[in-house]
């Protein structure tokens, strides 16, 4: 009835499945997490745009055109006659545009009368008078005229002496500068993309510094323990207790402000959190039996840290690294915003926001664009970081 199987015959029947490696397993779980994948796509988009965007936008980040300064992404164009449209700029001037919203450029000025407050333009052989004396009149009459931002009440347009309907306007998207221009007539879209390069560079360097200095420092401190650990952690405490702003300002004295100062500062400070995290992980891991087994085999200290301890702490390390990138980007934006960052004409998201602050009432889009860029990137990294934390936790392995 029952008899032992011939072992040789069994050999071919027993096939072993090629097992998933750790990272394949992580990737499988990460793919199932919709939020993490959204985050990953967001980050990929930002990285792609940062690398290729400035090449494709058609403008350079420093190219100025003061005639076309402060033009919003969504513009109102007024029909002069036939196919001729003009954009009435908040700075009391007319800019020629096509009916699709392409900006042609500054117009030929026949007369600029500052006492009577009108400008005479020549458009396609027609004499266009832009009379902004109403602004002064309405200001006197109006009760809270200081708050009056409605441009419509401030001007009249005459074509060949004939008053035209200034309310006959059309809302179009700015085809030339898709996100408008800043106060020097630079393309905001190009500058935001260029800012993404700087912000991502800072984020990347912060994470690399985190990884190398923080992980090794924490690993050595945790594994050595005792007096070495004590001294190394007190150094960390000292670094951690000096405010970031103070370090930046002090470094400004030594080296000139700019990207390298920010990178240096972030490099000096950002690994501290990671070092603490890794030390804590290593402290709990080093008492595990697999570490004792490696020691009993005579594996060297460096190899134990690199091959046994750090790979087992990789989950928290990767998550912390992911979370440190947005925080570094935010620090850079903050430092640039308060004027300690990159200098003009270079742009980072922080300096863009800072530059836009002056014209926040008239040109809010200049502030919104970099803010959205910062928020978008933060969301991306945080979603991915959260997803990775779940994916890297072996307890959730299915």
């Amino acid at each position, binding site marked *: 009835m029952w008899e032992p199987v011939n072992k040789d015959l069994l050999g071919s029947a*027993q096939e*072993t499945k*090629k*097992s998933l*490696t*750790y990272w394949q397993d992580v990737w499988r779980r990460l793919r199932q997490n919709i939020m993490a994948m959204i985050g990953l796509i967001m980050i990929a988009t930002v990285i792609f745009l940062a690398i290729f965007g400035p090449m494709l936008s058609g403008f350079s980040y420093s190219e100025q055109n003061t005639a076309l300064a402060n033009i919003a992404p969504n513009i109102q164009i007024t029909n002069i006659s036939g196919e001729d449209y003009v954009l009435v700029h908040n700075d009391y001037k007319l800019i020629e545009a096509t009916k699709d919203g392409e900006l042609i450029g500054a117009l030929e000025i026949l007369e600029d009368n500052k006492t009577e407050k009108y400008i005479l333009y020549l458009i396609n052989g027609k004499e266009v008078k832009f009379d902004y004396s109403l602004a002064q009149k309405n200001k006197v009459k109006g009760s809270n005229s200081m708050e009056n931002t409605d441009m419509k009440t401030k001007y009249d347009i005459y074509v060949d002496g004939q008053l035209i309907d200034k309310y006959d306007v059309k809302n179009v998207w700015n085809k030339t500068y898709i996100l408008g221009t800043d106060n020097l007539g630079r393309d905001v879209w190009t500058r935001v993309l260029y800012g993404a390069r700087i912000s991502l560079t800072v984020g990347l360097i912060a994470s690399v510094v985190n990884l190398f200095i923080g992980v090794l420092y924490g690993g050595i401190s945790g594994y050595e323990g005792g007096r070495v650990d004590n001294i190394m952690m007190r150094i960390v405490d000292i670094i951690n207790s000096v405010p970031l702003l103070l370090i930046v300002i002090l470094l400004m004295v030594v080296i000139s402000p700019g990207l390298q100062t920010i990178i240096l500062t972030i490099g000096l400070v950002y690994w501290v959190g990671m070092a603490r995290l890794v030390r804590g992980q290593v402290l709990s891991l080093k008492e*595990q*039996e*697999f570490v*004792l*087994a*490696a*020691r*009993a*085999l*005579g*594996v060297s200290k460096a190899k134990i840290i690199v*091959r*046994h301890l750090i*790979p*087992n702490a*990789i989950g928290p390390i990767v998550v912390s690294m992911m979370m440190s990138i947005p925080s570094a980007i935010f620090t850079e934006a903050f430092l640039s915003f308060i004027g300690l960052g990159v200098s003009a004409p270079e742009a980072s998201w922080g300096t863009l926001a800072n530059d836009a602050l002056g014209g926040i009432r008239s040109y809010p889009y200049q502030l919104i664009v970099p803010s959205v860029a910062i928020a978008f990137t933060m969301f991306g990294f945080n979603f991915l970081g959260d997803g990775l934390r779940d994916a890297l936790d*072996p307890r959730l*392995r299915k």
Partner: protein
Amino acid sequence: MASLLEIQALKKYFTKSNGFIKKVEQHVKAVDNVSFSIEHGETLGLVGESGCGKSTTGRTIIKLYQPTSGRIIFDGVDITNFSEKEMLPYRKKMQMIFQDPYASLNSRMTIADIIGEAIDVHKVTTSKSERDDMIADLLTRVGLMKDHASRYPHEFSGGQRQRIGIARALAVNPEFIICDEPISALDVSIQAQVVNMLEEIQRNTGMGYLFIAHDLSMVKHISKRIGVMYLGQLVEIGDRDKVYSNPAHPYTKALLSAIPIPDPLSEKAKNRIILQGDVPSPINPPSGCHFRTRCKYSTKECAKCDPVLKTIENNHQVACHLFKQ
């Protein structure tokens, strides 16, 4: 011929400092004055309750802990104060099998890497193919398949993991293996398999074992001699049959009476010795004989002087004042 391993008055104290302003140093006397020796091809079983210092003894012998005092003589060489570098050749001769098959394998490494690490450190093989062959051979020796090499520890059961742990220890062809409760985390049926495998390996290679366990019947099965530890001290040591049939120390008697007998009638009739009180703290062990607080035979002499191991019959020593030389 010298003993394979000789332990002389081994002590391992763990220092614990308390207090912030006034530092108070306390010593946990995990291993306190333990001496024994193991011959080539012999198995010494080390038994005792939890926290009595069995595992610490094992770990101190293999120098995972630096001993506080005493001497460890391996193959006639005193390795007590050897540096990590000097120890390296002895790490090849002395290996360890761990208790928890789940914690003792690095979950981020494949089985080939886990076993291969031992081979790499001691450069047992010279070429990649030789290394692969050796890993395959080791896996077959411990009853696994060679295809298992590319797998990760979490894909194995507890018994299989313990076999991997044994394969790792065997990879360097040691002369002596410390088995630190290798079977206590396994099912009974798997325990028998692993113990039989260890015995077979011993028969084939003639290596010595220090078998640490708290399962008395399993220790009786595998060991030639048995040492009984209580609160960091060796209270009795001798040939297996002598210790089991004629236990001398009151603690050994109590310990052995706890072995269940697989027969309800004799189990009922058995005279079980139940010790009173708890194990004293190893920070402040009782003076004299450590066992005197729980011993019904204790006398004034027990509190005054430390008992030393005395030979009561051939190959049977006990540390108790009840026995006079």
